[in-house]
């Protein structure tokens, strides 16, 4: 019998305690929970208040040195293709055109003074595939491929997840390719001509 009344008493007391706690939270909903971080002394003291973050309008800043979205600073890219080879899931696609000798100045140098020898008309990163492992950034010799602190880049269309970083338009790339082909053809022709001349001279010498 005493257990019976004990249960009722426990029930009443615990319900009252619980309702007291919820009511306290209800009335504390007029102010926000503090912004003290984990390393703050007051972190565990800020128990009451709203903790909702209205995301698109209020954002916790992402850490500056963390792995989020990839970015390629194409001005510094020398088109070596290390990243393409390093990527474990092949999410980087790259195409290069050798720079013609008279175009070297136009193509320019990287920010640390290295002469760029390749045009990079296609440098596509599929960020939908990218798992932000960061291997490509470690192998990059010019450190032009790096992570930016952008965490929210969702898209409605999957094709928008393909990021293009190439520094030439299709027409420009076509022109460069043709120029290169001409130069190469000319060089080949010169070579053949030279070879033929050398043969001729040899014959004459006999």
């Amino acid at each position, binding site marked *: 019998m005493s257990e019976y009344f004990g249960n*009722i008493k426990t029930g009443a007391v615990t319900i009252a305690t619980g*309702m007291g706690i*919820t009511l306290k*939270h*209800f009335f504390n909903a007029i102010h926000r929970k503090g912004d003290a971080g984990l390393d703050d002394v007051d972190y565990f003291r800020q128990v009451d*208040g*709203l903790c*909702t973050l*209205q995301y698109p309008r209020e954002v916790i800043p992402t850490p500056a040195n963390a792995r989020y979205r990839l970015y390629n600073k194409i001005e510094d890219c020398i088109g070596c293709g290390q990243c393409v080879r390093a990527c474990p899931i092949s999410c980087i696609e790259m195409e290069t055109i050798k720079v013609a000798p008279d175009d070297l100045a136009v193509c320019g140098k990287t920010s640390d003074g290295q002469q760029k020898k390749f045009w990079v008309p296609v440098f596509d990163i599929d960020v939908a595939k990218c798992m932000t492992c960061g291997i490509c950034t470690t192998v990059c010799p010019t450190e032009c491929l790096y992570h930016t602190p952008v965490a929210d880049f969702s898209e409605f269309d999957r094709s928008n997840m393909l990021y293009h970083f190439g520094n030439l338009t299709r027409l420009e790339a076509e022109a460069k390719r043709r120029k290169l082909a001409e130069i190469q053809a000319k060089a080949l022709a010169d070579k053949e001509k030279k070879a033929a001349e050398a043969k001729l001279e040899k014959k004459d010498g006999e």
Partner: protein
Amino acid sequence: MSTTALSQFSIPLLMGNSLNAWSDALAGFYLFGLPLGLVIIAAIPLVFIALYSLTYGVYGERKISAFMQDRLGPMEVGKWGILQTIADILKLLQKEDIVPASADKFLFVVGPGILFVGSFLAFAVLPFSPAFIGASLNVGLFFAIGIVAIEVVGILAAGWGSNNKWSLYGAVRSVAQIVSYEIPAAIALLCGAMMAGTLDMQKINILQSGSYGFAHFFLFHSPIAWLPFLIYFIASLAEVNRAPFDIPEAESELVAGYFTEYTGMKFAVIFLAEYGSMFMVSAIISIVFLGGWNSPLPNLGGVALNDWTNGPVWGALWIISKGFFFIFVQMWLRWTLPRLRVDQLMYLCWKVLTPFAFISFVLTAIWEVYRP
């Protein structure tokens, strides 16, 4: 009991201030030989249920639950998310009304209807104001207790007709729960009826009016009146399937209980019925134990607060705010307590509430007979 017992602060209104004046005037209103007034009387509680469940019921519950959990709740649609419920209703209206192929079509369609009618009929005997009551029955309280039992039929029809294991389990649990808890609830209300000596809702209210305000309420009528009040409140939670007695819905176990298969407007009707009966039990507890439309403010010497705050319009304000207060307590409990197990539910009903209801019944009877 004469109608002059009402202390009336005279408000110049078209239909006068005496007891049931508004509803009587409406009942006598005919247009082209059609009883249009009666339709209006029926429409008033309907509109009230719809509006209140729209604003306080859904929006209020979401906000209150959010604040109790340190959240913000709906914030996007309109300022502070005020229009969220309108958006939800628009969504519900556009939903396809699906009747499952293997469902019992008749029961499936009829279930929500019975459910809603059951909760709506009880509004007929709720005095919304001293001047307005849908039907001034001399057995009003008995009618209100009895008509709620019809809801059980609706729940069983919905659960059985859905041909779904969750729905059936929900319905069976719900019926077992409602039928069990009606006993302590009815005995607790009987204590109130004994204190009043009548079952007429308006008379119960008049008996609790007086210049001392809340001191005349039946909750303070006898030293043990708090016990039937508490018992009825707990039992009413179970009757309207609110937490901690929400095992018929039990989201984590039964998806949504007896209305798992419902979509579109049928779902909305069940929702409306649920919020309707929440207000109904809250109104009944405030009528029987907390004076209904009587002002709780006492007359303090020359400051006649009670006289100033009584009257048809004030009465509507008081009963609705008392009802809303109890709905708030229901929500408050819901976000505090975990769900009871089925055996705990039955233990609480048969081994705790029912014996205590009987004890309070006997003690109230003794108090009424040998009152000092």
